[in-house]
């Protein structure tokens, strides 16, 4: 019996945009399609990090909002005007002002989904993308993975499905996953992992492995026991069969709302009483009719693999030997790309482990993921990155083979080649290679290029941008503009300069990650001064056990902003100079407490 895992990436068009532009998490994002007569229809929408309500630590609609389809009453297919009206009712009219509206781009969505599918080949060799529905509003959002026989490598189906969800989560992708006997059943289970808790418990999931996927706290995954999917999923709504609107309406008219209700109807009369699609979907769900998995074949990227005659003990192998093999495979992968003028953007090397050992030692392949900031066709550079990663990972004891797969490619920069050997690297290319090396060891997020952001709050006045974002070519780097009230559509550079660089001399070169509360000594003339908020800076302050005597102070610079991010920030900043010559950046909150925020180091 086959076992299929469906990975649902809810609201993929929005998620893709959030991955490309993380700053969009703070604002509502609508992906719209322009219909005839100029009407904009909402395809997907989400607000990943909405503001917190005053006095509570729970966001209005938290991170899980990506998977709730009917949040705040906005449905796919609604017109943009209606959606905005609903949004302003639930979140206030200011939410509409900061909303980001983007045009639908199904091709880019599918391309990036294929990229995720290639990434998921680490879990099983056959990864397909669901067929787009003919009557639906959006494109495909699910991956279907044939996990028959591969779950043992991950310690069972429960750990496998959990690993998939968390691995994608570490890459910033919100996913839900379920395993069942047929693709249709897995699809239905993945879409309703929330409500499956009670259903699966009554279906008699006895083994620990299956109960594992049922904990209510972690309802992002589900494992439907083999052979029991019809009973376990009987209570799911009929729409979980991927029915179109007409078939769903017909069922609702006769009062049938669940999959179990459809299954109880006499099978012979189904085709004549309802749309033919219903019978097809039901038989696919039960497993009487096979549903082929369609593996994406557009733009197949090069792969290369080498299987050793017998398992290779890494203890007896020097790293140079292994690197020589990897270099050969890399050459096979890069050569076809160079002919097309392309370079590698990300690459996966799998060191396949031996399966001949005891079953409990069977483990998934050791995987090396390589990502670069600019497409690279230099095998030498990529080998260096792989070596860096190998030096810091725990290598398996023995390996059976090496598989190399190019996950994504990009247009490579054309350079004049010399007569002998490769072209001399330009200094810009060398800086990109340096960034690749640094991020390979320090982590992808630990290397960045800072850019000014138009935001009054000092912590948010800059953003970390990956070095590839401008391709090292752009001449001018405009400041990122956070949306402000009154529409954020205009994009004039003058606004950025005046707003973000109002007083650079007042900004310290070291900013503490969090402001540190200070104990201060103030001199006040009268009791009225104590109450008055503008009574000046303190005379002394203590940081740790050090006492600092203030001799000069400049300010205040009042910053009052960020009501849309939560409680309003209201601070009076002072640049103070101590008797020993040190300069500090301190502020007073509205209630009179003093904080140290930065040092002019």
């Amino acid at each position, binding site marked *: 019996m086959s076992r299929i895992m469906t990975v649902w990436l809810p609201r993929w068009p929005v998620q893709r945009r959030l991955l490309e532009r993380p700053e969009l998490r703070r604002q509502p994002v609508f992906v719209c399609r322009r219909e005839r007569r100029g009407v904009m229809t909402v395809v997907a929408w989400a607000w990943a990090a909405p503001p917190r309500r005053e006095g509570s630590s729970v966001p209005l609609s938290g991170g899980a909002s990506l998977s709730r389809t009917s949040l705040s009453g906005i449905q796919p297919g609604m017109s943009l005007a209606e959606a905005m009206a609903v949004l302003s009712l639930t979140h206030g009219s200011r939410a509409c002002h900061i909303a980001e509206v983007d045009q639908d781009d199904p091709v880019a969505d599918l391309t990036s989904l294929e990229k995720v599918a290639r990434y998921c080949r680490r879990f099983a060799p056959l990864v397909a993308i669901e067929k787009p529905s003919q009557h639906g509003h959006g494109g495909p959002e699910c991956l279907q993975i044939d996990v028959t026989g591969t779950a043992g490598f991950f310690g069972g189906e429960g750990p496998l499905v959990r690993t998939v969800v968390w691995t994608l989560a570490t890459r910033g992708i919100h996913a839900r996953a379920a395993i069942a006997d047929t693709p249709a059943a897995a699809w239905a289970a993945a879409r309703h992992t929330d409500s499956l808790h009670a259903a699966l418990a009554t279906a008699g999931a006895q083994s620990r492995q299956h109960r594992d996927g049922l904990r209510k706290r972690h309802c992002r995954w589900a494992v439907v026991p083999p052979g029991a999917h019809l009973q376990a999923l009987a209570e799911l709504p009929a729409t979980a069969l991927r029915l179109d609107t007409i078939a769903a309406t017909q069922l609702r008219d006769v009062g049938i709302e669940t999959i179990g209700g459809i299954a109880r109807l006499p099978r012979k009369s189904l085709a004549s009483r309802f749309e033919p699609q219903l019978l097809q979907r039901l038989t696919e769900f039960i497993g009487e009719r096979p549903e082929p998995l369609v593996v994406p074949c557009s733009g197949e990227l090069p792969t290369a693999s080498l299987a050793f005659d017998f398992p290779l003990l890494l203890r007896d192998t020097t790293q140079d030997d292994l690197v020589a093999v990897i270099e050969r495979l890399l050459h096979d992968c890069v050569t076809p790309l160079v002919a097309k003028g392309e370079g590698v953007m990300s690459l996966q090397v799998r060191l396949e482990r031996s399966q001949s050992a005891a079953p409990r030692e069977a483990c998934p392949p050791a995987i090396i993921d390589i990502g670069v900031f600019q497409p690279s066709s230099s095998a030498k550079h990529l080998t260096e990155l792989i070596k860096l990663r190998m030096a810091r990972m725990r290598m398996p004891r023995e390996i059976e083979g090496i598989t190399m797969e190019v996950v994504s490619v990009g247009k490579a920069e054309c350079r004049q080649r010399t007569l002998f050997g490769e072209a001399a690297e330009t200094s810009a290319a060398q800086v990109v290679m340096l960034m690749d090396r640094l991020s390979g060891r320090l982590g992808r997020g630990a290397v960045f290029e800072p850019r000014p952001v138009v935001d009054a709050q000092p912590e948010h006045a800059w953003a970390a941008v990956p070095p590839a974002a401008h391709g090292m070519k752009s001449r001018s780097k405009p400041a990122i503009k956070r949306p402000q009230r009154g529409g954020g559509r205009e994009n004039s550079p003058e606004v950025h300069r005046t707003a973000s660089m109002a007083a650079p001399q007042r900004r310290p070169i070291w900013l503490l990650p969090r402001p540190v509360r200070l104990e201060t000594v103030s001199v006040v003339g009268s009791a009225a001064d104590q109450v008055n908020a503008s009574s000046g800076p303190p005379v002394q302050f203590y940081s740790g056990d050090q006492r600092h005597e203030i001799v000069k102070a400049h300010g205040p610079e009042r910053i009052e902003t960020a*009501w849309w991010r939560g409680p309003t920030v209201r601070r009076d900043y002072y640049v103070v100079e101590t008797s020993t*010559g040190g300069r500090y950046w301190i502020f007073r909150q509205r209630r009179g407490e003093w904080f140290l925020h930065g040092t002019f*180091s």
Partner: protein
Amino acid sequence: MVTQVREQVREQVLGQVLSQVREYMGSAGGLLRQDSGWRQAEGGGRETVATGFSTLDRLLPAGGVRRGSLIEWLAGGDAASADAGGAITLACAVACRLATSRAQAVASQATTIVVVDRGQRFYPPAVLPWLESQSDVAAKGGRMPQLMVARPSRDDDEIWAIDQALRCPGVAAVLAWPGRVHSTAMRRWQLATRTSGAVGLLVRGFPGRLQAGEQTWADAKVAVSPVAGGDSAADPAVRRLRLSLAGGPWSGDEMLKERSAELLLDLTNGRESTRRHRLPGWPGTLSAAGRLQGGRFPLEEATCRAS
């Protein structure tokens, strides 16, 4: 016939010259070694770039910073305020000048500054305006200066990151504030700068002071300490710093007359301040008794951008 005679004469002359050289300096290999020794002693014939701070240039024996060298900035002053003394600010300003100087941008194309930020405290908005205000070379065909930040989370990662950045020929300057550095690591950094031409600016001295016997391979050590008070520092946009040459091979020159100097750093553009007069910057001054002389602090610049 004539050609043969000429070749004979030429070989004769060459033989004489070589024998004279051997008499004078030993073998030809010795000559080469001697040459490299001279070059190393003189800074390897490396190009000297003006830092843009005339006070600092006068202090440094080379009249500026040589490409491919390491400079240590020792955060001096009182122990309580060693981390607020302005050493990083000055080093950052020098890095910006190195990346944006015309010779650097047009000739060597090395215009990238790498900040290795251990501790995750570096605040780029203080520096980005300096780069923008100084990037006049970009309009004339050079590359835009570029600021990159690497945030290692461990000590060995930090040392490795500095080494990698110093090795890259596209990097103009590397700014870092490492803790204790082993002598071997620093020697490796020095050799890396020699091959790439990058300048390493290492700010040392906090949070713990430098160890007494710690060996350094820096070409120059400049102690930076803030000057407290005084009328000349009345402008909040100007930082008054005292620099003194504290060690390193560059300071071994006995002919060096000036060993310490004061520098006014303009924080608005990262250049040396030319303001001579007192500006109405500090509204209030506290006397020794701790009483406010200037009275109430007016809310002079309210940046209320809420709406």
